[in-house]
């Protein structure tokens, strides 16, 4: 009775949509609405300080300004630099930590909890601690040099976020069937070969997840830098989110600030798509 089945099926589909509706509505409200609103705002000239100008539609002129703005470009370059350095350091150190924690240790539970502590700390608190550590009571300062200022920033972020990467990788490590190592050992493969031909390939999904999460997060960096250098000296450490924040809150240029915010959104979005394509294993794509 195919007819009846399909009626039941379509009823089921309708029910499914009905049940999913609250969640979809929540996603639309929480995710889609603010993005669309920001986009709409970015197509207007809207300056809170100059209400007599109204809020005229200006098409892409805010984007044109952003694309010809040297400060926006250097902010994007800073953001990419921060993302590349922190994510690679977190990945390398996180992998080492995960491998260490994956061994049969006596106090494994407490050790794992201790390793996670930095991650549990609020970013602003962590950034303040690192700032105080690098602020010498003497007359010189790391934060006065445009290159040296990156050192405490990157260290603080790596220190804080590395445990998160380690946690993701540790979960991946625990999914690897132990008998593979035994078989490899029987075939005469040493620890290096085992790591290169068993651990790394099988860890690939976990590494992909860590890289996607961390690089998207790092690309939106705001708080660590806001607290430690405020983007200085000059604008030598200013990331794009901080510039967007300045345009919005200090300059009250909502149209232009929204265009900068949309740029952060677009880059993050395409970064996410690119990473997922590059790093996903063939099975998980299909």
């Amino acid at each position, binding site marked *: 009775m195919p007819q009846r089945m399909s009626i039941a099926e379509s009823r089921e589909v309708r029910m499914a949509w009905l049940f999913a509706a609250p969640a979809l509505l929540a996603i639309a409200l929480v995710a889609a609405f603010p993005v669309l609103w920001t986009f709409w705002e970015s197509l207007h000239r809207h*300056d*809170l*300080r100059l*209400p007599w100008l109204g809020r005229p539609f200006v098409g892409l002129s805010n984007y044109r300004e952003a694309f010809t703005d040297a400060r926006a470009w250097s902010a994007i370059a800073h953001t990419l630099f921060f993302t590349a350095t922190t994510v690679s350091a977190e990945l390398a150190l996180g992998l080492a930590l995960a491998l260490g924690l994956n061994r049969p240790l006596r106090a494994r539970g407490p050790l794992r909890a201790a390793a996670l502590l930095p991650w549990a700390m609020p970013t602003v608190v962590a950034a303040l601690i690192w700032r105080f550590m690098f602020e010498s009571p003497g007359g010189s300062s790391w934060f006065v040099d*445009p290159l040296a200022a990156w050192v405490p920033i990157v260290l603080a972020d790596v220190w804080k976020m590395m445990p998160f990467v380690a946690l993701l990788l540790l979960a991946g490590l625990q999914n690897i069937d132990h008998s593979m190592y035994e078989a490899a050992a029987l075939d005469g493969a040493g620890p290096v070969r085992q790591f290169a031909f068993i651990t790394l390939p099988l860890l690939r999904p976990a590494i992909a997840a860590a890289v996607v999460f961390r690089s998207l997060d790092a690309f939106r960096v705001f708080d660590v830098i806001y607290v430690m250098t405020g983007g*200085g000296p*000059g604008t030598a450490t200013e990331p794009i989110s901080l510039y967007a924040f300045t345009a919005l809150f*200090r*300059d009250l240029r909502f149209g232009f600030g929204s265009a900068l915010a949309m740029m952060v959104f677009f880059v993050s979005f395409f970064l996410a798509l690119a990473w997922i394509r590059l790093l996903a294993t063939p099975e998980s794509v299909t």
Partner: protein
Amino acid sequence: MIRTTLALRACPGCVALVLAGGIASGCGGGSDGRPVLTFSGSAVGREAEILERQFDRFETAHPPWRVELRSTPDSADERRQLYVQWLNARAARPDVLQLDVIWTAEFAAAGWIRALDDFAPVVSDFFPGSIEADRWRGSLYALPWFVDVGMLYWRTDLMPQPPATFEALMQQADDVMQGEGLPFGFVWQGARYEGLVTVFLEHLGGFGGQIVDEHGEITVDSEEAVRALTYMRDAIWSRHVVPSAVLTWQEEQSRFAFQNGQAAFMRNWPYAHALMQDSRGSRVAGKFDISLMPAAAGGSPTAALGGSHLAINAYSAHANAAFDLIAFLTAPDQMLERARVAGQFPSRLSLYDTPALTEALGLAASSARRVIESARPRPVTPIYSELSDILQIRLHRALSQQQEPREALGEAASAMRAALTRAGLDGGTRRYD
């Protein structure tokens, strides 16, 4: 952060609800049925204590009102951001706002504060520079509460008199560092924030330059400005009189260095005076005095004019009572009390002729007045924050040796001009009657 704002903007009503929920007494009246006026501003340390005392007296004189203090972040930038969120959402509270002198034009232009013309306040006794900053397009929008001026603090135990010229300052600072083994000669506020602009303005005036000239033209790329900024940079990197760490310092870090006896000179606001005379926390109590900033040939000693002003929220439902509160807080008695307890300089000229002020401040009112008379306002424009940001960045780049002073100031001047043109405000940075 960005998303939060958008949500706030999208739903002003929600914000009003949240705010109303946040204030226990909400609109209408307090738990005892009395109508409530809300005041928001700085309430650090002794300021909260004076305010509570003065609110009590106001309530006695103006029944049935009750005044509630809503304290705001200490950092001026954060306070301004909070105000922007409240006012852009058209929140009716707080009724009275404490504004930094440089925000008045911006808030007035945005329609966030109410013109005070209806109340016809008498303004002849206030310092003209302070009142000037309270006007926008011919209307008065705020009243000066207290004035802040940049002063030179110097160590009376290490030198007979303060330096009159920038070169003498450098020399004396160097002598004291060599002779007494002090780690720092001169300390100021060099972090990338508004304070840096005020310190630069004082050096600039001392070298004979201005940020904006009398025609409203941006002149931060003048020869005088290049000389002033070069002097500031060289004091750090080639003369080693100013520690490079000042480029991360705000007021408090420089005060700590000076009150721990580490520096021969400090540039700071009046608030530091009272705190450093307290021998419980200060090693220099009784060993320092204030003076005008030095000047070079062709310039004159210059203080940056700062200060706090009181304005009425444009959406306040209690404008009349709010004005009564402002008039009360800016009356001579309340100003003297603030001077005594918090060391803040009154904004009324006539008080400087009274012995009561000398006694209240613990320093000669005449020398305070001398500094105030050398005070120069910052440009009065609704886009001041943006102009300041542009300038801060270039000053900081030059001082951290990323750019030559001439190049940095040239860039700052053209970016500032472009911002004024974009806002349609060219030539209108400063308003003259």
